[in-house]
């Protein structure tokens, strides 16, 4: 079983190699560590191009949009999501222009594939972990890839589809075993994936927290309780109905969100379910708040045993 980064590298290289005319670019994508293995063995068809670029994130984001506007397909590999803050002008302003002037089907494709530094090893300036905020500021589809099912869908189709999106990979999961999960349901827009079906509890995982949700689902199964397990991507106007319907049956919702943001998308789900009007018990597992002389911790520790006890109580 390959680890997370190896499995994703294989899927990415396969998709890129099969896409005519694709242009892939970014810093160090064909040299050094190949962005920690992410772009290793990258190859494009004869009419494609691999460009090892200068360090100009803002201009490179604009370049990707210019290529998309001209009908080209391109992928920008970024070593850290933090660096993409320099491109926010384009995510908002350039993207707004494009969606007001051209139907998506007439556009080329532009994807940004960024590593999210969520492992807490690179200091306070390399720990931006708020994909949902990117999505919110410009209504961009942002996908946090965590397992074989969402990778197949997001890397296999969305990566080179017409239009713009961002895809995040978790540094924390790099060396962990790549999760191979069964698929119960996948929303057409890639917003909601369901991996297990059960009537005792509903588990919804945001950002890169799926392994924690999976651990809870398995711990409950060991106690003879079956849970429905979902992961959610930051897609504007997602269809929450599979999760809402599940909670209507189970009456229990456990939400995991390991992103660092005040405006967690998980809160939107809780709101949505609450508006359905049926009573339910809820558990929300998030990072701690920022503290004086410091900030929210990078580690995302979850006491699964305690959660199981509470859910079973």
């Amino acid at each position, binding site marked *: 079983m390959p680890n997370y980064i190896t499995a994703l590298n294989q899927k990415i290289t396969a998709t890129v190699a099969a896409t005519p005319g694709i242009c892939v670019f970014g810093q160090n994508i064909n040299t050094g560590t190949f962005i920690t293995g992410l772009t290793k063995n990258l190859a494009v068809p004869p009419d494609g191009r691999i460009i090892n670029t200068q360090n*100009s994130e803002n201009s490179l984001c604009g370049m990707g949009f210019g290529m998309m506007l001209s009908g*080209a397909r391109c992928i920008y590999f970024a070593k850290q999501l933090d660096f993409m803050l320099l491109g926010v002008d384009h995510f908002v302003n350039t993207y707004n*222009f494009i969606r007001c002037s051209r139907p998506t089907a007439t556009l080329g494709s532009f994807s940004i594939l960024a590593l999210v530094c969520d492992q807490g090893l690179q200091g306070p300036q390399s720990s931006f972990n708020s994909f949902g905020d990117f999505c919110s500021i410009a209504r961009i589809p942002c996908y946090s890839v965590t397992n074989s099912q969402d990778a197949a869908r997001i890397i296999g189709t969305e990566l080179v589809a017409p239009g713009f999106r961002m895809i995040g990979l978790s540094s924390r999961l790099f060396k962990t075993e790549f999760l191979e999960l069964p698929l119960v349901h996948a929303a057409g827009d890639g917003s909601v994936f369901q991996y297990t079906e059960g009537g005792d509890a509903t588990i919804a995982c945001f950002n890169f927290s799926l392994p924690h949700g999976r651990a809870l689902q398995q711990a409950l199964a060991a106690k003879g309780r079956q849970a429905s397990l979902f992961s959610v991507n930051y897609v504007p106007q997602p269809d929450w109905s599979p999760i809402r319907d599940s909670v209507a049956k189970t009456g229990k919702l456990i939400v995991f969100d390991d992103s660092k943001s005040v405006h967690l998308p998980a809160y939107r789900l809780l709101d949505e379910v609450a508006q359905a009007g049926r009573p339910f018990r809820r558990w929300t597992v998030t990072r701690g708040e920022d503290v004086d002389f410091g900030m929210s911790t990078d580690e995302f520790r979850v006491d699964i045993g305690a959660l199981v006890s509470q859910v079973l109580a």
Partner: protein
Amino acid sequence: MFDRLDIAQRHLAVKVLQVRHWQHVVNEALKKNVFPVPVHVAFGHEAAAVAIGAMMQAEDSLVLTHRNIAYNLARAGALQPVYDEYMRLPSGAGAGRLGSMNLSNPGHGVVYTSSILGNNFGVACGVALANRLAGRAGLVSVLTGDGAMEEGTFYESVALAQSHGLRCLFVVENNNHALASTIDQRRCPIDLAKLCGGVGVPFLRLSGNDVFAYASAFAEVRNTVMSASAPACVEIDVTTMNRHAGATPGWPTDPMNVDFQRGLVIAERTIDPVFVLKQVLAPALYAELEREVLMHPGSP
């Protein structure tokens, strides 16, 4: 002094007068507050806009800024689609969705227009790179001003274009203003020739507002860019003879005053491309061209 013009020269001269005339129409409408969007008029930019428009071939692209009116009018060759866009009408060049500061017109080569300073350089590089990958032989001209070129992405994009052999022409309209600040008021001088020279990009500076001279210069620059498959940069000295945005005058005692009733010429100096044109044409010829333009206002 010209007492006759060949077809190409006549086209240039008529275009300068048309763009000036249509801007007057827009300015008079602005005085009456008829537009629901802000408009950045560009009296004084006509020679550059017409010369660049004339330089463009069918496969070329233009990437503009918020002060795009002269370029859009020159490329569209008509007032109505631009005027309608300012009115946010479906018949506008952007179907009423883009307004003034983002007005593009892909059918006439204006593929992208940004109201955000420096935002358009990277996009222009992307359009040029897509051309190159697809084997299309188009030149991408990207406009900016002495204010927006202060953004770091200007330098980044010039280097990016040079690094990857992009057919990109960076055009800096230097009107010595960013909002209400002159260059002296906000920064040290930037020697664009040296900046471009530092990354090996050819540089040319134009001044004088003679549309015939500008057209020749841009045709030559286009040849250079296309044959070398590499970028170039042109800085043009421009005087914007109107307020930053909105009508001129903007208030009853505004010292800046533009009035269509006084004719097409705004300033009897070389800062005015129409005045320069009037100086280089025989009076009878200028009168004939002016009459032709005013008789066909292109509505409204």
